[in-house]
């Protein structure tokens, strides 16, 4: 459709190219989403350039009257597409035309309406518009002139224009700048426009009245960043108010509008309105008594809009300075005063502002000395609970609940709950029947008859009133009303949680609430009866005993039924409300099953699910006791919609909840997280329609992959936190290392272990199973997690893991597990578990620790037998071993250096002796970046400035972290997940939700396709992507760097890192490119790839798990001594190695290998070696890429 002619038939392409009218293609192609095709942009650019040149020539033509030719009239009659330039030219010409009448007609009916279709107007039109403004008398023309002047004046976006939809226009200012001939920019014309409008706004001529109002309005569009214009606006507004605000207000009580007023009064009222409207658009000026004075005066004005603006301004001022506002309002709040009139004002927003004003003043600390004032405003606030408009009533409920913005203190919210459940709405002091004025358009509940109105005026408990109102709202058919009602319930839940959190006395919800009321039972029963008759669901209240919990129960019943609403957003809000109303000690089975069945619905958009997930965070923050419950709920998200949720936010929830669960709940919490590991791997497509909570719902490859990554995260999490959950630390273990040796019989060892610490034993078992039966990535991470546990745990766990790792390295028992193993199509490795080379450094460190311990025991025995003291030399040697082992261990996981004893508890005494003798501070190691990072990791503090006090590391390292969780300071700054949580808690953000692609639209995709997709997306992840992540697991990335710096600034070749460690950037691309060219590579090349890369996310919201770029990965690829090796490589010395397994090339860049073949390693990139063979293979190639793990370096 052509916007200009309004002709729905599409313009033939020829006309669009010949004329400069914007073709349909130039409309913003919104439906195609953010990624506009380049070609489209090109054509648009062409159009814009055309507009530009036309405009400029039009402007020149107008400036040069000799050459100005009158626009051919006929052309317009035929409704031909009219270009912007033609319109612009018409304006110039018509403004200069002597024939006012015909030119006005053209302007009103043709030029101005058509011009409006363009996104913006260019500043060069301003002179002509101003000319029209001065000469023209036609009201409609003038109205358009003000409209366009305001648009030119308006605050431009970054594109230099105030976009208005319709046909896109260029950035006029930028064009004018480019144009050497001297284009007109906004800066050129703004002063003239402002000048003209100012003159008009000051014109007190009665004939000019209406224009004066419009001029002031247009002037208010000037950007507020211009202080000069701002000052002028204030001057004009206050000037007007000085003249019109002070006289006696003729407003009759409760009657708004100016019907029947005389001319002078009406003019005054209009000016009052215009001035206050403009003032409302100006920045608030708190502390300025004149501002406050004028704003307060506005409450008494006759114009309803003026009253609204005035109330909005003073409610904002009251939030800043309640005392001053209360004093200026003075008597207006008294019964019969202007504020009471507002109750009957037909303007919803005015009443909303009144509610907020009442809240600010009635809760102000500054007014503690004046309880009378506070109670007057409080009374007014409670009156608003009866408001016929939901918007106003709900705002009043929010205010009663203590919700004002999102920054209230817990105590305020708690007090809010107390008020709601205990306070009573008293009979209004002046119960005049003014309901007549109340608007009827959205009167709900249905307007009561006079008889009924009397009844609702009876004193009532607020909670009963609110419950009844909510129940009736929940029966509404309007989705916004349902959504808002659910939101009110959510806020009730927040206040209730706060009340429990601060331990408000008297919160027994089982108490009969009617005893709170000082009114006769019969009275209350009558209202209760009435309520029950109207609301069947409240039947459990009829038994005579009405309690808060019975009221809540019936409300929640209604809320739950709302989950059947068609609108997914309403459902989400209902779920949030249910989460908030859930208390820690109630059964949450119902909530669980509601969520489980909801999540099975593919209609849920990811952003909404993440919102619910963030709600779990907020709920946890309010009630840490809920940790286990919330984890159970989070688990449903993990299993049902793994592809849609923000994995970072989920992991953050795991971690915070684990800590929040406290000593008793830790075991359960860990179970709740790692139950994910017990689930059978998802089979694409086979799980559709299962709604059980434990069923894995990975109906498409994308979510299958996401689930897989979630499993990896869970494994990582388990390894990282099992010791914390089990409160088992080697450095606190009471069991001496020797004991374990006595339990070498494996069965005894396991029995002993599980009887001593079932949590740790359970975690161990899970990890062991994962190390055998998971996917390749899971197995790697499980091995790493086991190592972490081995290092951190005392005996017999360490020995148990040591044994297990040995078995794993040899891989002999793979077959035993084969029945448990469900293949997901990957090669499990050429021999054994395929983890051999990865595990060997882990075993090595344990080997070293054990041999060090043996050595120590032997030495001690020797000393004891010979009754010799330890010489300083011997102690030094011991200490050096200790330090060396510490360094090694720190590479794998964080341990507290001051306390950790790699040589066992028996070494403590000797080490101490040496340290004391040489004045070595035990905390010296704190400077070790790896350790420092480790601590920051553990306490969630990404800000390294916070000194981790070594002495406070005792007991539970993480206790400090736990205790400080509630403190916002600890919610680090750069962790994206934490940012998201904090942003959510603060209620910030105006960003649009991501438009997700329809994930169910690719049902035919196989795992192979999936991998291909994975690989394709790999390159799109820039370095920014990886450096930005630093939430819990992500921050390992920084460990990686710190470790590198620990080793002389070396970059480690990382198994997982896609950053090229060596080689030119050109060669970096090579292996990846080969993946593209051959996505259906053999299984062995897939194997290589999986080592090479973590699967990157499919969609941007799902962040990459950089977590798994464990520092282990670096040394793990070779051995500890490799740092020296790498140095050699980097200095250009070739390295040699031999092929461990057969490798068949999957792409052109790859090289076939036969096990045992000798190769020369040129460089490593991205988990691949570029190697040269001594002689060409069957394919004739001598050089190419092979996976790192296929080659053993010699």
């Amino acid at each position, binding site marked *: 459709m052509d*916007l200009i002619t*309004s*002709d729905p038939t599409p313009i033939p392409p020829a006309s669009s190219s010949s004329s400069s009218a914007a073709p349909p293609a130039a*409309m*913003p192609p*919104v439906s195609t989403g953010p990624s506009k095709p380049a070609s489209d942009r090109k054509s648009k650019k062409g159009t814009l350039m055309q507009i530009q040149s036309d405009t400029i020539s039009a402007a020149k033509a107008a400036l040069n009257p000799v050459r100005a030719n009158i626009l051919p009239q006929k052309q317009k009659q035929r409704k031909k597409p009219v270009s912007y330039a033609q319109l612009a030219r018409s304006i110039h010409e018509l403004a200069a035309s002597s024939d006012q009448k015909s030119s006005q007609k053209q302007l009103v009916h043709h030029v*101005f*309406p*058509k011009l*409006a279709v363009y996104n913006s107007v260019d500043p060069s039109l301003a002179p002509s518009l101003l000319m029209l403004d001065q000469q023209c008398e036609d*009201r409609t023309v003038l*109205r*358009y002139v*003000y409209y366009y002047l305001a648009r030119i004046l308006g605050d431009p*976006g*970054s594109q230099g224009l105030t*976009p*208005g*939809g319709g046909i896109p226009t260029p950035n006029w200012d930028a064009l004018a700048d480019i144009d050497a001939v001297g284009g007109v920019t906004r800066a050129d014309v703004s002063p003239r426009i402002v000048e003209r409008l100012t003159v008009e706004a000051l014109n007190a001529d009665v004939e000019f*009245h*209406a224009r004066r*109002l*419009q001029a002031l*309005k247009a002037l*208010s*569009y000037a950007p507020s960043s211009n202080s000069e214009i701002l000052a002028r606006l204030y001057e004009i507004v206050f000037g007007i108010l000085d003249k019109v605000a002070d006289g006696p207000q003729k407003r009759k009580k409760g009657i708004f509008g100016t019907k029947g007023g*005389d001319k002078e009064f*009406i*003019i005054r*009222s*209009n000016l009052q*309105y*215009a001035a206050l*409207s403009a003032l*409302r*658009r100006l920045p608030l000026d708190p502390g300025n008594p004149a501002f406050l004075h004028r704003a307060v005066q506005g409450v008494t004005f006759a*114009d309803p*809009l003026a009253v609204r603006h005035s109330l909005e301004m003073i409610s904002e001022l009251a939030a800043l300075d309640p005392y001053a506002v209360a004093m200026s309002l003075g008597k207006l709040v008294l019964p019969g005063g202007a504020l009471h009139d507002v109750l009957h004002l037909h303007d*919803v*927003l005015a009443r*909303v*502002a009144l509610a907020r004003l009442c809240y600010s003043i009635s809760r102000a600390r500054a007014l503690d000395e004046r309880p009378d004032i506070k109670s007057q405003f409080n009374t007014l606030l409670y009156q608003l609970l009866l408001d016929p408009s939901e*918007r106003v009533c709900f705002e009043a409920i929010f205010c009663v609940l203590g919700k004002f913005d999102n920054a209230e203190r817990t105590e305020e919210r708690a007090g809010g709950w107390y008020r709601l459940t205990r306070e009573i709405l008293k009979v209004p002091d002046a119960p005049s029947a003014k309901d007549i004025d109340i608007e009827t358009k959205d009167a709900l509940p249905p307007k009561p008859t006079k008889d009924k109105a009397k009844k609702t005026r009876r004193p009532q408990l607020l909670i009963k009133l609110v419950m009844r109102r909510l129940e009736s709202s929940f029966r509404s058919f*309007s*989705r*916004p009303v349902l*959504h*808002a009602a659910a*939101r009110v319930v959510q806020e009730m839940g927040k206040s209730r949680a706060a009340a429990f959190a601060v331990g408000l006395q008297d919160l027994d919800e089982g108490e009969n609430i009617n005893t709170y009321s000082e009114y006769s039972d019969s009275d209350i029963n009558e209202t209760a009866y009435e309520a029950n008759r109207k609301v069947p669901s409240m039947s459990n209240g009829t038994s005579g005993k009405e309690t808060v919990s019975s009221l809540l129960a019936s409300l929640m019943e209604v809320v739950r039924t709302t989950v059947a609403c068609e*609108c997914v*957003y*309403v459902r989400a809000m209902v779920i949030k409300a249910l989460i908030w109303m859930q208390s820690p000690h109630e059964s949450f089975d119902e909530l669980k099953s509601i969520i489980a069945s909801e999540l099975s619905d593919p209609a849920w958009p990811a952003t909404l699910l993440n*919102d619910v997930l963030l709600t779990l965070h907020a709920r946890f923050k309010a009630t840490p006791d809920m940790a286990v419950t919330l984890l159970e709920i989070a688990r449903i998200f993990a299993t049902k919609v793994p592809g849609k949720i923000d994995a970072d936010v989920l992991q953050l929830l795991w971690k915070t909840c684990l800590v929040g669960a406290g000593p008793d709940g830790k075991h359960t919490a860990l179970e709740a997280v790692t139950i994910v590991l017990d689930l059978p791997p998802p089979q694409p497509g086979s799980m559709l329609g299962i709604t059980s909570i434990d069923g894995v719902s990975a109906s498409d490859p994308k979510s299958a992959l996401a689930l897989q990554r979630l499993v990896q995260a869970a494994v990582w999490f388990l390894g990282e936190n099992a010791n914390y959950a089990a409160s088992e630390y080697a450095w606190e273990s009471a069991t001496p290392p020797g004991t374990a040796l006595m339990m070498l019989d494996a069965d005894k060892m396991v029995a002993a272990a599980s009887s001593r610490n079932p949590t740790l034993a359970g975690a161990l078992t899970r990890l062991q199973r994962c190390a055998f039966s998971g996917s390749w990535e899971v197995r790697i991470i499980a091995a790493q997690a086991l190592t972490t546990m081995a290092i951190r745990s005392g005996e017999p766990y360490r020995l148990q893991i040591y044994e297990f790792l040995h078995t794993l390295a040899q891989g002999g028992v793979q077959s035993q597990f084969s029945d448990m193993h469900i293949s997901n199509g990957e090669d499990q490795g050429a021999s054994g578990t395929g983890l051999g080379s990865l595990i060997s450094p882990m075993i090595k460190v344990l080997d070293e620790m054990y041999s060090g311990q043996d050595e120590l025991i032997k030495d001690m025995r020797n000393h004891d037998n010979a009754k010799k003291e330890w010489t300083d030399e011997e102690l030094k040697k011991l200490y050096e071993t200790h330090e060396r082992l510490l360094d090694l261990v720190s590479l794998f996981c964080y341990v507290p250096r001051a306390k950790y004893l790699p040589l066992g508890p028996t070494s403590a005494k000797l080490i101490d002796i040496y340290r004391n003798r040489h004045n070595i501070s035990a905390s010296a190691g704190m400077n070790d970046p790896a350790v420092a990072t480790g601590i920051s990791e553990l306490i969630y503090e990404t800000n390294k400035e916070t000194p981790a006090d070594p002495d406070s590391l005792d007991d539970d390292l993480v206790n400090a972290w736990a205790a400080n969780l509630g403190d916002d300071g600890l919610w680090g700054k750069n962790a994206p997940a934490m940012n998201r949580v904090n*942003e959510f808690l603060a209620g910030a*953000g*105006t960003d*649009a*939700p*991501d*438009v997700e692609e329809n994930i169910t639209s690719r049902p035919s995709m196989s795992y192979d396709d999936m991998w291909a997709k994975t690989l394709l997306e790999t390159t799109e992840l820039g370095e920014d992507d990886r450096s930005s992540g630093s939430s819990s697991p992500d921050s390992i990335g920084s460990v990686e760097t710190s470790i590198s710096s620990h080793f002389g600034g070396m970059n480690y070749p990382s198994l997982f890192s896609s950053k090229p460690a060596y080689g030119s950037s050109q060669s970096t691309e090579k292996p990846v490119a080969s993946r593209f060219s051959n996505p259906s590579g053999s299984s062995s090349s897939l194997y290589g790839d999986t080592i090479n890369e973590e699967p990157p996310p499919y969609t941007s919201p799902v962040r990459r798990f950089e977590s798994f770029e464990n520092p282990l990965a670096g040394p793990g690829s070779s051995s500890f001594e490799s740092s020296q090796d790498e140095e050699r490589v980097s200095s250009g010395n070739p390295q040699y190695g031999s092929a461990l397994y057969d490798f068949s090339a999957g792409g052109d860049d790859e090289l076939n290998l036969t096990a045992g073949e000798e190769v020369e390693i040129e460089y490593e990139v991205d988990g691949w070696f570029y190697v040269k063979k001594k002689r060409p293979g069957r394919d004739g190639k001598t050089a190419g890429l092979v996976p790192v793990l296929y080659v053993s370096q010699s």
Partner: protein
Amino acid sequence: MLLAVLIANPEGNILVERFNGVPAEERLHWRSFLVKLGADNLKGIKNEELLVACHKSVYIVYTVLGDVSIYLVGKDNYDELALSEAIFVITSALKDVCGKPPTERLFLDKYGKICLCFDEIVWKGLLENTDKERIKRLIRLKAPTEF
């Protein structure tokens, strides 16, 4: 704050938009999000039936009127119910200007007048006039209350 008013045709082309307090780089996202929202949900919806959505602390109320779909985005005071009030003002002004629920052609025919109405209804991110008669007067450059 009334963050945005958008009117789109059935194909998802934006006919009118008024953004307030939304960074320029976010506008494109909002456009695509809203248009997608409409495409997914507005089929078969009665004229002026209100639909709701929310994202973080931002609320969206939208509806369909004749051939055009109308989207309002707001936050803080402009929650889903306040937006419902605002959208009611807009739809009744549109019906007033067009004489009936507009076809796309009719909408474009009356485009200029519609812009003037919007100018009176939403003023710098705040709802201004809500009264039909008053809006009618103001777009003809008459005083809000006539004498």
